[in-house]
């Protein structure tokens, strides 16, 4: 490695990235440094964005939270539990206190792992991602961001500046499954959002396909079947079908952390539970 560049602000970060397209961005470092310490990766240079002020802030624009890509999870948990309960719940399941103090949504997007726990909530909530470069800023729906494991639409000269997430219009849930009761990479995860004004459900699944995926059929089904006005209890047939459709949206693999069959099963169970919990919350509200 031959360089270490520190960006002072977003503009500077974009300039540096344009000048060093092969430099690896580093924010919380919780993915980047693991690769470096183990000698598994050897990037040409590091570009530190951990102190870029624009990335470290969040703000509210009408019904949207504009979340700087570099806001660590601890702050999301502490500050955004009301506006973005799904993301905040997911953030709380990530790593440990020390990890959450550093790690960021921008890094989770940059790593683009199917197991990124912040990602299903973004997909479920139909967030969009703001990408900045010297060429300007563009917005990409989170649902279109991922191309494959570790791959996204992010260009060499671009930086994730922010994520624009609709303020929760209703209950949101997130649950994951892992072989340990803390500090685990998800074997499967599910995020569900309810949007009663639009009569819309969001549902996305992690760790069960090459990328986090939207369970579109499950969303459509639930959106139509839920008794938004009467708020009656969910019939078991609805949750069961929803679970089935969520599982059908996945394309899991066997690996050292779990078999494909188990992942699919887990997605169904988690989808059923998260929808049930969200619905209970909605009924109480």
């Amino acid at each position, binding site marked *: 490695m031959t360089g270490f560049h*520190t960006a002072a602000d977003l503009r500077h970060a974009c300039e540096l990235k344009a000048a060093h397209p092969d430099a690896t961005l580093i924010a919380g*470092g919780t993915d980047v440094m693991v690769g470096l310490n183990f000698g598994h990766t050897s990037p040409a240079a590091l570009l530190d964005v951990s102190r870029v002020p624009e990335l470290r802030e969040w703000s509210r624009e009408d019904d949207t939270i504009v979340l700087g890509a570099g806001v660590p999870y601890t702050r999301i948990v502490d500050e955004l539990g009301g506006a973005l309960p799904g993301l905040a719940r997911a953030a709380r399941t990530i790593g440990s*206190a*020390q990890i959450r103090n550093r790690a960021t949504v921008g890094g989770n997007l940059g790593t683009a792992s199917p197991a990124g726990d912040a990602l299903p909530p973004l997909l479920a909530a139909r967030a969009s991602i703001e990408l900045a470069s010297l060429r300007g800023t563009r917005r990409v729906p989170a649902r279109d961001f991922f191309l494959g494991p570790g791959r996204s639409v992010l260009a060499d000269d671009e930086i994730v500046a922010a994520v624009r997430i609709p303020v929760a219009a209703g209950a949101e849930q997130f649950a994951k499954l892992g072989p340990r009761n803390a500090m685990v990479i998800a074997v499967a995860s599910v995020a569900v959002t309810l949007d009663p004004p639009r009569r819309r459900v969001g549902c996305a699944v992690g760790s069960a396909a090459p990328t986090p995926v939207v369970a579109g059929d499950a969303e459509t089904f639930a959106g139509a079947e839920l008794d938004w006005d009467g708020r009656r209890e969910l019939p078991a047939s609805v949750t069961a079908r929803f679970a089935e459709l969520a599982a059908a949206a996945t394309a899991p693999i066997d690996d050292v952390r779990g078999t494909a069959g188990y992942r699919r099963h887990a997605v169904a169970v988690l989808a059923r539970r998260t929808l049930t919990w969200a619905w209970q919350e909605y009924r109480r509200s």
Partner: protein
Amino acid sequence: MRVDLEVNGVRRSLDGVREGESLLHLLRERVGLPGSKNACEQGECGSCTVYLDETAVCACLVAAGQAQDSRVVTVEGLADGAELHPVQRAFVEAGAVQCGFCTPGLVVTVHDLLARTSDPGEAEIREALAGNLCRCTGYEKIFDAVRLAAGEAR
């Protein structure tokens, strides 16, 4: 490259730092503070926990260059001279130390927890310490130490 930072109140300028080097390596091998431990170097064990500008982090996951101009406090910086910090004293008194490899990181993590919450409940303690692995103690006496230190602080 060169990194300037403050460690335990002392300003340091370190030359010849590798670009991909971790803050942990810098502290242990260049500053001469091996108190922060290196059990995994992948963020899983917490044995390297230090304060970086008042935030508890895994030093193994901070690139040394990211600590430029920052203030770092390590386990070596918690005692007041010969006087142990109450958290340190509680670890000694509760018998929370066996091999001690996890201890520096745990001391910093508990210090941080108690700075934020004076009277943590059981689930809260467990959650806060979930990023600090200990292979010897089964954690039970570490929880005792947390409660002891919390009681003393009140």
